[in-house]
């Protein structure tokens, strides 16, 4: 049973560029949430997708956007990258919006130079 997978593992971008991160949820899960984790901090909620729609959003600017596909996989897009966007981006999947346990992927380490 495949767990949550994310790609790429690492990414280096330049300020002002755009980036797309990808996530495949655990088999059977239909809800995907994205988190940003800066070094030494806990994960911060970005948004959650269920039934191909953004259902909840954290305190992140519109530069952060996402998408969920019919197969429940998801993408996180960040436009106009800033140095402060450097972080570990985590995808978590769960069953339904009220699914208690969230399964996290290994994350994508984004470095903005």
């Amino acid at each position, binding site marked *: 049973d495949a767990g*949550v997978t994310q790609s790429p593992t690492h990414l280096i971008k330049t300020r002002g560029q755009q980036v797309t991160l990808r996530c495949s949820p655990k088999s059977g899960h239909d*809800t995907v*949430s994205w*988190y940003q984790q800066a070094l*030494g*901090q*806990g*994960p*911060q*909620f970005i948004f*959650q997708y*269920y039934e191909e729609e953004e*259902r*909840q959003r*954290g305190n992140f600017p519109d530069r952060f956007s996402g998408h969920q596909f019919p197969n429940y996989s998801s993408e996180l897009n960040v436009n106009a990258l800033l140095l402060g966007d450097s972080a*570990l981006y*985590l995808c*978590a999947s*769960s069953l339904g*919006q*009220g*699914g*208690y*346990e*969230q*399964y*996290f*992927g*290994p*994350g994508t*380490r984004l470095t903005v130079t």
Partner: protein
Amino acid sequence: SQKIEQNSEALNIQEGKTATLTCNYTNYSPAYLQWYRQDPGRGPVFLLLIRENEKEKRKERLKVTFDTTLKQSLFHITASQPADSATYLCALVRGNNRLAFGKGNQVVVIP
């Protein structure tokens, strides 16, 4: 403002002893609280969930308590082992499974 506080200092503990971590929160009324383990460069791994009407939850060598009056949760690892060395994150649930995490507390188990 809403805060979730975990001790920023690493907890160094001798193998075999009980490690106890604290999670304090303010201006939240969570229906339930979760604890996760995170190893360096990896995603968090779910450990335990406790509901607001539960005082204590156990899973193998792990025990969690939840006091909604004190707004505090305690996380215990009994008979600690070097393999328990990691960062442990407390998370409160907001809305539909939207998690608010503390900064985490590092545990180092010394053989």
